[in-house]
């Protein structure tokens, strides 16, 4: 098994080097085990849970299904790199905390990234658009009710800050 992959990834605005790695490593593995970014989580390794969601060139993808060495010359944003515009938490993160949408928290980073992507593309989504946009994120604890409430709060907060 050769460990001779060497490449540079652009993660959260920073250039990060990966050395002596195995070609089969997923982006999720590299983020968590090589680049000190354990915020993205792995719960299935096959793209069926969304816990590993990151933004790759502006698209929300499962990082467990991205071969890390192919992600060169791309922009990667993880939960650690979401812009809170100087606040402690982004509006989506704050809504999750306020609305009780976090229980064990394992699905949470993936959901936060997926919802940021949704609201950046579609700031006023309908209820069904929200549900379909995050249908690839599984939560086992909450039953989703409080997650929908959190999205509703984030949508309202964004709308208010745009009209003010």
């Amino acid at each position: 098994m050769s460990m001779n992959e060497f490449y540079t990834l652009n993660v959260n605005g920073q250039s990060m080097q990966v050395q002596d790695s195995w070609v089969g490593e997923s982006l999720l593995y590299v983020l968590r085990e090589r680049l000190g970014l354990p915020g993205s989580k792995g719960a299935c390794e096959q793209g069926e849970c969304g816990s590993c969601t990151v933004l790759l060139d502006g698209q929300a993808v499962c990082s467990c299904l991205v071969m890390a060495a192919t992600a060169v010359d791309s922009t990667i944003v993880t939960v650690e790199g979401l812009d809170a515009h100087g606040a402690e938490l982004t509006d989506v993160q704050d809504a999750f905390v306020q609305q009780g949408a976090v229980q064990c928290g394992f699905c949470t980073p993936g959901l936060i990234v997926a919802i940021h992507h949704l609201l950046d593309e579609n700031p006023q989504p309908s209820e069904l658009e929200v549900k379909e946009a995050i249908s690839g994120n599984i939560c086992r604890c909450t039953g989703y009710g409080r997650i929908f409430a959190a999205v509703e709060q984030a949508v309202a907060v964004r709308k208010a800050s745009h009209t003010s």
Partner: protein
Amino acid sequence: MSTTKVEQRERDILGVSAIRPDGAAKVTGDFSFTSDMNAENMLWGATLRSPHPYARIVSIDTSRALALPGVHCVITADDVPGKPTYGLISSDQPVFARDYVRYMGEPVAALAADHPETCRRALALIDIEYEVLKPLTNAEDAIAGSFPPIHPDGNIIRHQRIVRGDQSATGPIIVEGEYEIGMQDQAFLGLEAALAIPDSHGKGVELHVATQWLHEDLGQISACLDLPPQNVRLILGGVGGAFGAREDISLQVHCCLLALKAGRPIKMQYGREESFFGHVHRHPAKIFMRHHAQSDGRIIKIEARFVFDGGAYTSTSPAVLINGITHTQGPYKCDNATVDGWAIRTNNPPCGAMRGFGVVQACFAHESQMDKIATAAGLSAVDVRLINAMETGDTLITGQAMESIAPVARCIIETDHIPLPAPLAANAHELLLPGGSGLTASASHIVRGVGWGVSMKNLMYSEGFDDFATARCSIKEGVVYLKFATSEVGQGFVTLAPQIARSVLGLDDVVVEPIDTQIGSAGSTSASRQTWMSGGAVDGACRLVREQIFQHVGKQNNIDPLRLVIEGTDIIDQIGTFRIAVREAIDGLSISETFEHHHKPTEELDENGQGNCHTAFAFVAHRAVVDVDPELGLVKVVQIATAQDVGRVLNPLSALGQIEGGIAQGLGLAVMEEIVIQDGKVRNPSFTDYLLPTTLDAPDVVAKMIEEYEPQAPLGAKGIGEPPCISVTPAIVAAIRDAIAKDLHRIPVRPQDICL
């Protein structure tokens, strides 16, 4: 969607929707789950598991694996220095299999290497010769005695009967059914992971692990490692959900053994496939029930036979069986009963605790039966349940008196008052139809149904088990510190404990100390018990501290401490005018009090299943509205209405989260979740084929919390974790039956059950 308005209160005391103290860390990704932990000089551990449900181990050769560059050590049963087996009730489960493997996935060896990929390749180089044997897969064969023992302890794990009242009683209405419950998995998202750091002298180890009961793990681990318990330090890492699957040991001993053998920190983590093999599941069961009733629908007698398939090792099967059979009657009056219950060992995957713990299975049977009685008596689903509804003071079929507040009728009536959803529109959006974006149907193909389920659930442990909880409250430099070993698995005890302290002490600055074994046991985070037990311990410890504060203030101000009470953030003299801010009163004080909360003792059951074996009970009603495509057998659960007996709401947002989450799990068992087993082999150990509900499967949940203060509970609050997932399942099945006018007797309901 409903947004709960989070009211801005001044203080996060009991009754307020206090937000989680770990919420910010969890939403930023900073919160450390055990899988996020690393150590300097760390190696990776991995486990080799049996591919066969039943086989004799002829030989094990680890030499090729050891020779692979990057591999540091390989261990098997020969490397277990202490007790070779472990178990929650009976120590019948080997750390590593010796001589026989008894289920597909049973651990046979483990190794440590420099990279997870090296581990995977090395596992393939461990040579094991098996003599494959015909597995015992049908529990009835074990009961009949027609299969030789697959374990020295035999194939019958437990047999228990309940016999009460007039055995010859009968009634004009007799309805019966054979009910089948498939194997559900807890499927917590936070996959099993642990980090074991050996002491430099090799005689101790520190284990960071996600578990439900630190002290129980500690006892079992130290016995297997042959180390004194004080040399094994367990620290609770971040837990990504549990739902029962972390009550049993999984990777704890393996990880510690590798660390001690390699002399380096070892990180082990399971992938999803391994996780399906690495923990116990919900017991699949077959239940026969026959109800005799009066012509007005009142139950006269129940006969039942329960068979729980416990799989290869005992785990908590004996307790699951008792829970199941003692809940045969459901939340209904019943004077006469004959119940026969079996927990069986087979070569199917081991089963144990999962949210609901045996009552889920019993509830599906008794609620299906109640609908049959309703049909025979010409009653509605609501009326048949109201006429039989249990009340405080009733006698259970075990002879135990129902001492808990039992607002069964109120739960049903309040659920019934919740408005039904609007009918499906002719031009309904495709995502609202069964089949969703698969575009399998239009609204004209869909039929709607409504169904009911009501349940009772015991709280805390039973049959004489003293599952106490310990907590320490300390005050130092104006800050309250709470110490407990209560596992936080996502349910929110770390939110509740400070709320208790703030209410009792009138102080707001509360810190939860690290959760580890440096304090007495809190018991398991299971059985809907922690609010009652650990909450009671925190409450008790805080009261002791408060007493000391009152003694101090009383002495300083020449007031009898009995006159002092907390009002908001002040201490006041109830009879006089004295008032002092608590913060001022504790200036310079250092206090620490530890309290153990015990519930009242319970009894074992005698050979007729008679005895006060349970502590307390909670009740809940569910009404399900489903849309069904009868030709394709596809289902969309539209609405779940529920009224749950919670005693007292301590944190409305947390409580709602438990209810909605439990409902989703019950929905999963009703229509989509099943571990498919064929000849002892698991066919679907992945999220591709073990289906969990997504956002597009989640119904609208309308929940009412019934607050009738439970005097036996230290805070007046009942546990709320399990009831939401119990009667929602039969409610959904009843709704499907209503839509298709056809009987269903199995969960999960599959499309072919509906349409073929």
